[in-house]
């Protein structure tokens, strides 16, 4: 399906958020994800649909 991830539209062969994070090699506990303008609660998986817009905000340590 076609997804817009952080502004970039690409074809992905996945169905849910966790699979997308796995595909991108991102640990779910270190991100805030917004899908179509709504923040997805932490560690919650959700189904993705063609055309969904996702913003994945990654956090790295240090402070």
């Amino acid at each position, binding site marked *: 399906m076609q997804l817009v991830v952080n502004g970039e539209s690409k074809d992905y062969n996945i169905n849910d958020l966790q699979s997308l994070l796995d595909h991108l090699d991102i640990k779910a*506990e*270190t991100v805030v994800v*917004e899908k179509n303008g709504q*923040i997805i609660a*932490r560690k919650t998986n959700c189904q993705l649909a063609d055309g969904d817009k996702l913003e994945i*905000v990654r*956090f*790295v*340590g*240090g402070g």
Partner: protein
Amino acid sequence: MITTTIEDIFSRNVPGIRELLKDKHIGIAGCGGLGSNLAVNLVRMGAENLTLVDLDKIEASNLNRQHYFADQIGMEKTQALRTNLLRINPEVKLTCHQLRLDESNIAKIFDDREVVAECFDGAENKALLTGMLAASAKLVVAVSGLAGTASAEKLKIKRPIRNLVVIGDGDSPDCREGLLSPRVSVAAAHQAWAILDHFLKEGRSCNL
């Protein structure tokens, strides 16, 4: 003894900024390198109503970047920061919580705060607090990516989603490589500015 008035302290401030920030409720989650320097910046601009939260006591390894002093090693960070902020402006009103923030208490502790600064050290804690509070319609000003020796110019202010400002360089190395005071200070100063910017814009939209 020299008598100092609040007006003396702020006589070189940009006019109107102390009045804008003085009664704003601002939360600071974590009083380490980011939180301690951010709090100092906010108080020097005129903010007086801060909530400070941290679990830790001051250790010697904090002094390379955190706004504490050698004679404060062993003190609770929230209490030491309270002391240091009161030395800048004796009229600040601080709410201090010496505890670990987690899923069970984040919403309650920052319930009355319009803006919360994410000042943690660990990536998972950063994501937890930021996700919970941004979803609850508070402005979160977070930091991600400040380790290493790259130019502090690379620390950018971004607004990736609604209710969230993130400051960082996007590709800094793991923080286990070390943290340097100039980069931590610049990130904290960017946080202070982003909070000021929020209230300036809010003020303008109210006056329209």
